[in-house]
C-alpha cells in the first residue's frame, strides 16, 4: 500500500473560515443509489481519501476483468454485488434501517457513512481518471455497470423514489395514442403475444431516441420520427443512459484548461469541495500529498496486456525465422490457424487478417526482417514491385517502423472479438464467434478435437457467447496429457482451469507444454491489475 508519513494523517482542519459564505453542511443521502450530481463538500482524512478510493477501484477493476471474461449479467451481479461490494463498499437499503429507536438511529448513521464513502470514492476516482481519454472511457464504462448492477438489485419501491427524485420529464402516451399504435408498439419491443396485454397496460412513454440508444442498439423499441416509444418496464435503460450521459459530461468538464485560481487554500487542509470538478485540478496540483495518490490510483487500473518485450525468451533464445512458422502452427489457437491456412491456400490475406496475424507473429518473436520475408513469400502470386508498394509498409507499420511509429501490441481476444467483425469474404476475428458451428466442428477436427463431449461443450459455450471459454476448453483438451503431467510435477501454479484471454498466451502455453524445458517461466501476460487484490497499487 501507499505509505503515508504520520504527519500527514492529521485530520483536515476546519476550513470554513476560508470559504465564508459557502455552506458546508453534511449532505444527507436519502437514497441508496446516487447520480453523483453534487460534489462532496465536507472534509475527510487523507487516509479515508485514499482507502475509500482503493476500495472502489478494486470493484471497478474486478468489473473490468469480469467483462473481459465475457461474464453474463447474472454472474456479474453475483461476483460484484453479492461478494465484492459487501466487503469493500457496502450500501444498505433504507428498509434495512427503519427509524425511531436508538438502535435504528445508529443503523441510519452507518448507512449514511456507507453512502458517504460511495460518494467520496466516486469523486476521488473521477479526479484520478479524468486525466487521459482511455482512463476516462474505462471509468465511465465500469461506473455505469456498477450503477446498473446496484440499480437492478435495489428495492423496487426505493428505486422508484430515487427515479422520481431525478425529475425527468417523460412524456407518457395518452390512451388513444396507445390504442392507435398498439401493434407497432408491441412489435417494436419484441413482445410475444402472451405478454402483450401486460406490457401494453403498463404504459409507454416517448423520448428522443438518443436517450435510449442502447434499446435502439438492440432494436427493442419502436422508433417514429426520431422518437423512441419506450415501455415502462424499460425505464431502467433510460435512467442508466442518463447516468452515463451526465457522468461523461462531468468527466469532460474535468478537462477544462486549468484556470488561475486564487490561492485561498494555503491552509493545507484537504477539502473536497465544489471546486473539485472543474477547477480542482490546478488546486490539487499544488498539493503534494494528493498528486502521488491520484497517480497511483490511475495506474492501478491497467488492463492486462500482452507484453512483447518478454517474448524474446519464448523459444529459449532460438531466433524465429520465416521458414519455421509452418512448423509452429500446431501451437496456434484456432483464429491464427485459420488465418495461416487461408494465407497458404489463397496466397493472400485481406487487410484486417494481415493486421491480426502480423501482430501475432510479432508477438511470438518474429523479427521485422523475417516478417517481411514471411509475407513476401506467402504472397506468391504477386511480384516484388507490388509487394513493396502495397504491403511492405503495412508489415513495417505493425512493427512501429512507419507512420506514427506506435508500438502496436498483439491483439488480445477481447480486441479480436470486438474490433472490426469480419465481412463476408474475410476470415479474421474469433472463429468461435464468426464461423458457423458445423464448419467449426470440421476445423476442430483438424486440430485433433473429435471427442463428442468436448464438441458438445464447445457448442454450449458458443451459444452462451463464451467464446474464450470454448477456446480454453479446446486448449485444455488438446493439452490434457501435458497439463496433467505438469500438475503432477507441481510446476505450474495456474491450476488446471485454463483461461485463455490472448492468442499469444495460447501459443506460449502450448509451446511450453509440448516442449517442456524450452520456455523459461515466462510471465508473458501482465496480471490484470485489478486481480481482486490491492497489490497492484504498489508499483511505482
Amino acid at each position, binding site marked *: 500500500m501507499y505509505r503515508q508519513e504520520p504527519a500527514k494523517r492529521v485530520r483536515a482542519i476546519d476550513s470554513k473560515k476560508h470559504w465564508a459564505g459557502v455552506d458546508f453542511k453534511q449532505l444527507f443521502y436519502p437514497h441508496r443509489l446516487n447520480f453523483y450530481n453534487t460534489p462532496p463538500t465536507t472534509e475527510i482524512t487523507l487516509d479515508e481519501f485514499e482507502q475509500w478510493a482503493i476500495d472502489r477501484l478494486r470493484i471497478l477493476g474486478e468489473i473490468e476483468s469480469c467483462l473481459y471474461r465475457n461474464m453474463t449479467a447474472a454472474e456479474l451481479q453475483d461476483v460484484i454485488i453479492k461478494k465484492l461490494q459487501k466487503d469493500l463498499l457496502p450500501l444498505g437499503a433504507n428498509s434495512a434501517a427503519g427509524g425511531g429507536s436508538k438502535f435504528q438511529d445508529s443503523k441510519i448513521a452507518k448507512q449514511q457513512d456507507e453512502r458517504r464513502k460511495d460518494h467520496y470514492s466516486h469523486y476521488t476516482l473521477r479526479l484520478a481518471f479524468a486525466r487521459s*481519454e482511455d482512463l476516462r472511457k474505462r471509468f465511465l464504462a465500469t461506473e455505469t455497470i456498477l450503477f446498473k448492477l446496484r440499480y437492478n438489485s435495489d428495492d423496487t419501491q426505493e428505486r422508484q423514489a430515487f427515479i422520481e427524485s431525478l425529475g425527468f420529464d417523460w412524456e407518457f402516451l395518452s390512451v388513444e395514442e396507445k390504442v392507435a399504435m398498439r401493434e*407497432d408498439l*408491441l*412489435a*417494436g419491443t*419484441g*413482445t*410475444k*403475444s402472451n405478454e402483450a396485454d401486460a406490457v401494453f397496460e403498463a404504459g409507454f412513454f416517448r423520448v428522443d*431516441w*438518443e436517450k435510449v*440508444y*442502447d434499446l*435502439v*442498439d*438492440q*432494436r427493442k423499441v*419502436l*422508433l*417514429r*420520427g*426520431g*422518437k423512441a416509444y419506450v415501455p415502462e418496464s424499460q425505464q431502467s435503460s433510460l435512467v442508466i443512459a442518463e447516468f452515463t450521459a451526465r457522468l461523461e459530461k462531468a468527466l469532460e468538464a474535468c*478537462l477544462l*484548461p486549468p484556470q488561475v485560481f486564487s490561492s485561498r487554500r494555503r491552509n493545507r487542509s484537504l477539502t473536497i469541495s465544489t471546486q473539485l470538478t472543474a477547477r480542482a485540478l490546478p488546486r490539487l496540483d499544488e498539493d503534494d500529498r494528493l498528486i502521488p495518490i491520484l497517480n497511483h490510483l490511475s495506474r492501478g487500473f491497467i488492463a492486462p496486456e500482452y507484453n512483447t518485450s518478454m517474448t524474446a525468451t519464448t523459444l529459449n533464445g532460438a531466433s524465429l525465422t520465416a521458414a519455421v512458422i509452418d512448423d509452429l502452427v500446431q501451437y496456434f489457437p484456432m483464429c491464427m490457424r485459420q488465418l495461416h491456412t487461408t494465407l497458404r491456400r489463397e496466397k493472400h490475406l*485481406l*487487410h*484486417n487478417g494481415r*493486421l491480426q496475424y502480423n501482430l501475432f507473429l510479432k508477438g511470438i518473436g518474429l523479427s521485422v526482417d523475417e516478417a517481411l520475408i514471411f509475407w513476401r513469400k506467402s504472397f506468391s502470386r504477386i511480384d516484388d514491385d507490388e509487394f513493396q508498394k*502495397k504491403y511492405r509498409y*503495412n508489415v513495417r*507499420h505493425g512493427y512501429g517502423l512507419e*507512420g506514427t511509429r506506435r508500438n*502496436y501490441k498483439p*491483439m488480445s481476444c477481447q*480486441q479480436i472479438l470486438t*474490433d*472490426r*467483425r*469480419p*465481412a*463476408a*469474404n*474475410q*476470415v479474421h*476475428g474469433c*472463429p468461435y464467434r*464468426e*464461423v*458457423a*458451428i*458445423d*464448419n467449426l466442428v470440421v476445423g476442430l477436427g483438424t486440430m485433433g478435437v473429435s471427442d463428442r463431449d468436448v464438441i458438445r461443450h464447445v457448442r454450449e459455450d458458443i451459444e452462451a457467447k463464451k467464446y474464450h471459454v470454448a477456446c480454453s476448453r479446446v486448449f485444455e483438451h488438446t493439452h490434457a496429457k501435458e497439463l496433467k503431467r505438469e500438475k503432477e510435477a507441481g510446476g505450474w501454479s495456474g491450476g488446471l482451469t485454463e483461461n485463455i484471454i490472448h492468442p499469444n498466451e495460447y501459443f506460449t502455453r502450448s509451446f511450453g507444454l509440448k516442449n517442456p524445458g524450452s520456455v523459461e517461466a515466462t510471465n508473458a501476460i501482465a496480471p490484470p491489475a485489478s486481480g481482486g487484490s490491492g497489490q497492484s497499487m504498489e508499483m511505482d
Partner: protein
Amino acid sequence: MSDPNSPKEDIALPDAPATPQEFQDADFDSASDSDSPAGKIDVKTEPQTDPPEPASPAKIEIKKEEGGDLDNIFKDEEEEDFFGDDDDADFLASEVGAVSIAPGSGPSDPQVILTFYQRLFPFRPLFQWLNHSPIPCHDFGHREFAFTLQNSAYLRYQSFPTMELLRKEILRLNPSRFEIGPIYSANPRDRKTLHKSAFHPLSKELVFDIDLTDYDEIRTCCDKANICNLCWNFITVAIKVMNAALRDDLGFKHVLWVYSGRRGAHAWICDKRARSLDDAKRRAIVNYLGLVKGGGQAGKKVNIWRPLHPHISRSLNLLKDRFENDILREQDPWRDNERAEKLLQLLPDKTLNDALRKKWDNHPSRPSLNKWADVYDVAKTGVSEGLNPARLKESREEVVLEYMYPRLDAEVSKHLNHLLKSPFCVHPQTGRVCVPIDERDLGAFDPMAAPTVLGLLGEIDAWDKAHKREEKVDDYEKTSLKPYVDYFKTFVNGLLRDEAGVKREREGNSGNSMEF
C-alpha cells in the same frame, strides 16, 4: 487500431473509358472558371477589414448567388504565408482555361484531373454544404480534409478557413481524390501544438457505405470490382430500405446519396442532430439497421426474433416486391444444385430438404424461380410430418432478407472521426464522377452512365465549338454534370434553410453572437 484509410485492396479495373476524346484542339476562353463566376483566383484581393454583418436568414439566397466575395473578407496575411507566394498563385491563375489534354490521356491523368477541378468541381456548393452558413465559420474552418496525391502520398489534417483557400490548395496539389472528416474542437493544423484534450472531433455527418463486394456471395452476374445493372439493383433497393429507416424512424431529413464512383454508394446524413451523434449512438444506429451478420463462413446470417420489429417488417415489404424479379429471375442464385444447398441451409426442416434435394437431383439446372416455388409446393404435399408451417414462412422471410437487405460496411459509420471520399471526386480507376443520386427517381440512376471526367471535358469542348464566345455560361452547365450539381445545390439549400432556423432558435435575438 488500423488506419481507417488503409488502401482498398484487390483492385481490378472494370469498365474504364477506352479511348479519350479529342482535346488537342481545345480553344477555351481564359475567363471560364469552374463553378463560381465571381470566384476567379486572385490572391491580390485586398483583405477587407470590416467584419460582416451576420447574414439574416432571409439574405441567404442572395449571398449564395453572389459568389466569392464573402470568402475573401477573412483573408489575412497569415493565410498568404500559409499557401506560398504570389508567383505560385499566378502560375495557377494562368493555367485556368488553358486546357490542352494530350491525346491518349486516361481518366487519372493528372492534367485531366486538374482541369476537372479548375472547371467543373462545384466548390461553392461543397463549401456551403460543409459550412452550414453563408459566412465561413468553424464548421468549415475546423473541418479535416485529407488528400490522396498523385504519388499516393496521403495528407491528413488539412483545413481551410475559406472555400477559396481550399480550392487553391486543391489546384496546387491536384490530389487524385480527397476525403472529408470531422469538425474538430480546434483547427486541425494546430493539433500538434495543442494539448490532447483540446483537440478532439466534435461532429460529422452520419455516413454509410454500401459496397457491392459485400454481395459477392450472392450476386451471380459479377464479382469483385465489376458491376452491371442487375447488381446495381441491390444498391437501389438498399437505398430505399435505408431511406425509410433514416427518415421515418430516426427522424432525419437531409439524406444525400452519392455514387462512390465504382461499385457502391455513400450516404451522408447531414441533419444537425445526426452530425452531433457520438460513437456510441452511431454504433446503436448501425446495429439497429444491420441485419446481415457474420463472416464468409457463417451459416445463416440473418437472425431475428418474432414478432418482427416494425423496421424489419417494413423493410421486408419493400424487398418482397423485388425479390422475384431481382433475385429469382435475374440473379438466379440456386440454379446449380450445389449452390441450392445454400437455400436449403436456411430452411428449417431436414425431411423437407431431403425431399427437395431428391426432386432437384432429377431436374438439373432447375431455375431458382421454380426451386423457390418448390419449397412451398413440396411442403404442401405433407412430405414432412414435423414441419412447422409458421416456421417455414419465417424462414422464407429470412431468405428474402439475407439476399436483399442492405449490407453495410459498419466500420465506416461507427466512428465520428472516419473519413469518407468527398462527393464529386473522380474515381481514379473508372474515371467516373462521384455524383449524387436523385433519390426521387432511384430507378433512373445508371452507374454505367454516370458522367466520366473525360466525357465531361469533351462536352465543354463541344459546347464551346457550337456557341459564341460572348455567352457567359458556367462550364458545368455545358455538360451532363449539370443535373447532378443542380440536385446537390437544391439539397444544400434545403439544409441551409433548416440550419438557419436552428441557429435563429439557438441565438434568440442576440444578433451578433456568431463566432469566427
